[in-house]
């Protein structure tokens, strides 16, 4: 191939060049050299978005994050916000105990679809109906990433997973649960939104959703929930660069992105946050 005109990128631009830093992840909040998640995984970006929104709202010294068990658990011991690690599926109950004892803290959960819609479906639905003043965040890739990419309760019809290499078949494997939609229908729930991290635009929208969810908690309006569709090229058995489009083509049509409910504003159905 021909020689390309490559711009040097091994150090910041010359201070004299009049350039300002406009984006960098917040390394103070995620202490990683290199994390262990797979190439092309959507979870690190989701994770980064959560902690950065906490920081943006000035909540770092009041936040307690409760983690589920999944690939994202790799982040539970390298954040600079307080973390309570839960067992698989149980984070919403732990978060409830925390919030009830520390009503001034901002309490959020970080869980996967396997964690939240399989093992712990009941926990999140009950916490939602109690109107628990917590923010639950679900990273939805439609697979158990951590154990090797098996089908979960959110896997969409036709999706490739380790046990549905030919795609999920409703006759054999049942139907996906659209958790955000389900939660939006429950009294006690103040805010529900579904974002994605497959494009930069979706990341930006998702960050706004997270921000709003935390504001809803701060305002004491009730239970708030953000689902984030994330890529799992490993569990989908596809190439990393195909994953964003796969998400758009397969997951998003079923798990439609947008703000599903916001009791704090007139908005609420189908807008995009």
């Amino acid at each position, binding site marked *: 191939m021909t020689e390309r005109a490559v711009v040097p990128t091994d150090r910041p631009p010359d201070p004299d060049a009049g350039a300002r830093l406009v984006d960098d992840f917040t390394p103070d909040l995620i202490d990683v050299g290199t994390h262990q998640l*797979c190439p092309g995984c959507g979870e690190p970006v989701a994770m980064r978005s959560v902690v950065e929104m906490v920081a943006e709202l000035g909540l770092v010294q009041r936040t307690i994050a409760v983690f589920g068990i999944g690939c994202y658990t790799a982040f539970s011991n390298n954040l600079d916000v307080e973390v309570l690690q839960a067992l698989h599926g149980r984070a919403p109950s732990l978060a409830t105990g925390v919030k009830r004892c520390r009503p001034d803290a901002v309490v959020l959960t970080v869980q996967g679809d396997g964690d939240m819609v399989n093992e712990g479906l009941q926990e999140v639905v009950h916490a939602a109906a109690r109107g628990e003043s917590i923010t639950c965040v679900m990273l939805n890739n439609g697979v158990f990433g951590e154990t090797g*990419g098996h089908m979960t309760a959110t896997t969409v019809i036709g999706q490739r997973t380790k046990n549905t290499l030919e795609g999920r078949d409703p006759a054999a494997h049942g139907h996906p649960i659209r958790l955000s939609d389900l939660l939006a229908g429950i009294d006690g729930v103040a805010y529900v939104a579904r974002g994605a991290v497959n494009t930069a635009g979706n990341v930006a929208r998702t960050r706004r959703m997270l921000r709003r969810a935390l504001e809803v908690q701060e305002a004491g309006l009730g239970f708030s929930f953000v689902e984030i569709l994330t890529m799992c090229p490993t569990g989908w058995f596809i190439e990393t660069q195909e994953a964003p489009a796969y998400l758009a083509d397969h997951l998003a049509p079923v798990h439609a992105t947008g703000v599903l409910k916001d009791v704090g504003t007139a908005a609420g159905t189908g807008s995009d946050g």
Partner: protein
Amino acid sequence: MTEREVVLTGIGGQGIQLAAQVLCRAALAEGREIQLFGSYGGMMRGGNTEATVVVADAPVESPPTVGRAWGALVMHHEHFEPVHRLLRPGSVVALNTTVFEGDFDRGAFVVVDVAATELAGGVGNVMAASMVMLGAFSRATGVVALESLQRAVPEALPPYRAQHVALNVAALEAGYGGVDGPLAEAWPARQEVGA
């Protein structure tokens, strides 16, 4: 009873486990008994991967992991130390010299230097470096014959990777060819056992 413990170590994953599979299937085809223990972290962890193979001329008595190794295939220096501790004087150590860095008491062992990653690149894909090493190890020890290894490739590959048979067969050959001749003797009488 003779038990030949061969430890394969590296980073990344598939290469090592596939080589171990091929080695075992080849040995089985030659009528040996085998035992294979593979350990690797969860799906997402890119860390070290290791396989312990025992090839024997009678049912294997050895536990899944071994306290001493008769042979080793070392793809990378990073996880070499634990394997090094298993080696006996005279153990056969195949080293991927393209990648391996660092010193050790080479004199105590039969060291087989193989530019495996380089040779693999030569046959078409650096991912086949483990297979190059296995070919070289076969040549150096005779623990199994090259043909047995090559015949074992198709059944060891999962169906959706069937297109890689030729590459791996070539890699085995390249490794085999990269070693001048036997440097150790795996089996006492060098006679064919069983079928």
